[in-house]
């Protein structure tokens, strides 16, 4: 069971060849996952990845931050310790706009980072190793999940036939013993 292949990765050195292979993999219903060293525009459309919705919660948090800033100025300046400055109203909302806006935007920036880290599955991982170090340099990777053990050879041949310069088969044992070595093929197999 431990040696049963769970996914096959094809490494492409050609941008155009990689996109063509991704398109073919989707057409052949291989449910591919793709990894690229830099953003490849058009790839998300090929793979059917929906537009990121990270903007909506961030906008919500900016508004919450703004309200917190406004509430803080209202509470401190007119409730907790009303301060008479030149006879002006205790709660002069116009003067509190700068602090409220800055608080809102700061909340938004922090939330943007935290949410992006969550959606991109980021966390300090000192032992992260990609199966191929060139994946973050000049190599485009297409990972195809293996449903039946016998399929791994077929999928390897399919990837080679579509221009993959190298093909690598990931057994379940390797992934289970060191998941950080091949994190994506595991996910591809299960998902």
């Amino acid at each position, binding site marked *: 069971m431990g040696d049963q292949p769970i996914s096959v990765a094809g490494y492409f050195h050609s941008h155009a060849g990689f996109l063509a292979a991704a398109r073919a993999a989707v057409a052949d219903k291989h449910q591919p996952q793709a990894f690229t060293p830099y953003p490849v525009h058009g790839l998300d459309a090929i793979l059917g990845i929906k537009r990121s919705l990270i903007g909506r919660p961030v906008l919500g948090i900016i508004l919450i931050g703004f309200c917190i800033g406004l509430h803080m100025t209202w509470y401190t300046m007119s409730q907790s310790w009303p301060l008479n400055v030149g006879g002006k109203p205790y709660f002069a909302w116009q003067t509190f706009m*700068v602090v409220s806006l800055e608080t809102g935007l700061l909340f938004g920036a922090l939330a943007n980072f935290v949410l992006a880290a969550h959606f991109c599955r980021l966390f300090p991982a000192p032992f992260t190793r990609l199966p191929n170090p060139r994946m973050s340099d000049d190599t485009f990777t297409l990972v195809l999940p293996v449903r039946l053990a016998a399929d791994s050879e077929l999928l390897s041949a399919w990837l080679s036939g579509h221009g993959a310069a190298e093909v690598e088969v990931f057994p379940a044992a390797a992934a289970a013993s060191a998941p950080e070595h091949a994190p994506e093929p595991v996910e591809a197999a299960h998902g």
Partner: protein
Amino acid sequence: MRDPMPTEGGLPALTAQQITTDITKTLFRLPSKEWHAAFTLAQALAALLFISVACYVVEGYGIFGTNQPVNWGNDITTYIFWIGIAVAGTLVSAILFLFRQRWRTAVNRSTESMTVIAIQIAGLFPLIHTGRPWVDFWLMPYPNDRHLWPNFKSAIVWDVFALTAYALTSMIFWYFGLIPDFATIRDRSKHPVHRAVYSVLALGWRGGAGDWQHYERAYAQFAWIATPLVLGMHSTIAILAAIGKVPGWHTTIFAPYFVSGAIYGGLGMALVFLIPMRSLLGLKQYITIDHLERLAKIMLGCGLMVCYVYISEYFAAWYSNSPYERGQYLFRMHGNYAWAFWTMMTCNMGIIQLLWFRAVRRSLIGLMLVGIAVNVGMWFERFVIIALSLMHDHMPSAWDNAYVFTGFDWMILVGSFGVFLTLLMAFSRIIPMVSIAELKADLLAPGHDQAPHAGNGEGHGHG
């Protein structure tokens, strides 16, 4: 890569691997003796700031030259100078990004780094200026044992919030842009310590197609958030002065004046360090003369706005019919600090006009000299606005109370440049000074216009 970009001028085509190698090569090499010598010199200059601060903590604020009525002197002048340097970095990283200026890719990492360093230096000065820096946390609203809050009706407290929000956002934005590049370095590291450090910094980045989707969206959102923050932050500083009834400050034009001046001065600083940096780090083919020329053009545009404001200020002073306003501007021209005013005018209104000439814009020495002049001019601009305005306020009996720099003022000013140089040189050893992933996406993606302005044959233009 088998399908590299075509290039002009017969240069070999760039590949992704070559881009990575070129940009990261200095990270994996021991620095040269010259680098060590320069770094030691920068640290020695930086030490001046820390010695000055240490003396100030022991002796008190009296060691500086500030007096009555010039109670904002070198520290606030230098504070606004460094804030201005930071603003230009955000212009390149966020505002030009929103305007889809792809050429910014070559310079955005280095200017963002400049922002991160400059904002930290700038933040030191108001903390020093408070007089008792060990209780600076009183500026923050927290439920203290005296049940007191900061006065949110004060523009000083607005500035605390504006600066804090801007500084934190700039640093997060800068780090966020670095994550994919840290992953690239992680995967190229041979030394286990290097690999472990960059692995932590890369946060386990893998570059999945879905990850890039979220990443690019979040990056654009950072640009959207940083833009109002930076404009608001410098406008808040401008309002802080403009609401004061000091002749020379009390003017509604201050917010756009400060923002355009900040971008102007900051781009000058960017040119001053980009020109040697591209040679020292071997990045000439990525940061080309075309990029520097575009920065120079923006600098010229901002410089013209600054010239317009100078003229407009004089017109407003004359038109106001206020003897104090008129007196202030006459004092600037003819008073005992007239040399500071004329230095400012020479650098900011005179020397900048050289950038109308293409030959100057495409000359490294010319750009370097103009950049230095702009920095000198912009420091003196802040000095003229702050110190000279206070020297000649509404109280004629105080007019003779001259403001003179002490040795500690000089140390803290020169030391701030030392800190800037030290951190910049340190950054250049640990982070890629050109964004690897963004550059590859820009240069290597099929269908991108790949070399529209590499006409000089010096490097690979992109934009």
